């Protein structure tokens, strides 16, 4: 179920990411299929910054999968 402005993005992956530094944050997983089979809990991630509108957002991809999308 998409948020307004997200209709073309379905399905997308919302995740709560635990940072090594301590805090937890909501984000999106990118560079992975939006398929539950590919989205195991607790998989190691790394940050990637992506422009969305006039914002740069910290998103996450599977660790070790190369540069930003």
């Amino acid at each position: 179920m998409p948020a307004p402005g997200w209709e073309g993005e379905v399905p997308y992956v919302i995740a709560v990411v635990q940072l090594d530094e301590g805090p937890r944050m909501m984000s999106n997983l990118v560079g992975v299929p939006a398929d539950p089979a590919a989205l195991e809990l607790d998989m190691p991630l790394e940050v990637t910054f992506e422009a969305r509108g006039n914002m740069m957002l910290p998103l996450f991809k599977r660790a070790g999968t190369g540069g930003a999308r």
Partner: protein
Amino acid sequence: MSRMKIAIAGAAETDLGALPHMSELDLRADAAHRALADAGLTLADVDGITSAVESPIDVAHYLGVTPTWYDGTSVGGCSFLVHVRHAAAAIRAGLCSTVLVLHGESGRSRVGAIPRQRPAYGMLGQFELPYGAFAPPNMFTLPVMRYLKDTGTTHEQLAEVVVAQSHWAAGNPRASRNKLLTVQDVMSSPLIAYPFHKLECCVVTDGGGALVITSAERARDLRTADKPVYLLGSGEACDSPMVSMMNDMTSSKGFRIASQAAFREAGIRHADVDHLMIYDAFAHLPLYGLEDLGFVGRGEAGAFIQAGHTRPGGKLPLNTNGGGILYTHTGMYGMFAIQESVRQLRGEAYKQVDGVKTSVVQGVGGMFTAAATLVLSNQEP
């Protein structure tokens, strides 16, 4: 000096479903008149009024009432449980004598509905909305992946929550979804936000309900004197305003704190509870509720429901109107959970449980953000 006893002396629901001819104020007014008629009272008897989202003063003005006490606490779907608790405190404090707790919401038709704002400067606007987390189906459901993994609860057990409730809603003409369901029915309905299927999400309806709260002493002189419902205890609590910042994704801090306060005030134990309502906007909430209220141990709720204990004839009848998933859900369902408890305690429910003396209502507001609990009984405390 013994403490003043509080009663629910009037209770009623409006028509439910799709009601495009009624605005939210109309629904509230209709609910108010029905609940007052149930108690044998009129608007002239009302000196306290509550409302969530819409200002209680707007509602009072529309009804032609000038209350000397009002409460506009608006913390989502459990607001009405909080209102009952606050009304009891106000009556005991002598601030008012007869309180209308009012709900009316055009959740489906959106007639006269106040838009929910998610401004960019708010916490949700800053930290959740940018990631496409916008509506309850993809926010409220987020913690369940962690819950399923940590407790070993299965997707089939999540579906069983709905199946069990369908045994209560089956055949009820007032329930939006009133057919008996199987796990296969639930799991083959369209996926809304993984892992939730359409039948694991609440219906979206128009409707309203109202309660008349007064002292037990005054309730004895009213029309419902022969079917009393007493408030034995209550609690209110909160967790994070953002679901991603919940204290623990697998347990509701609000459920734990509010229910413990309510049980303590009522002086009851779990074995005393004959009937239970747990606010179910989505199918995982009864699982969290059974565990966080302490009816079962950690990770045991799925198996408990699967074993049939919450179905008709089971040892812990749960969500006996079919819940928000099957009966009705206007957006703020808490009023309807209270109404079903009142019906069960009066012996007036569509699927009546034998010998109900004590009923517990657990409400939630926002995405686990707020919580409130009521302990109700037909036995005078």
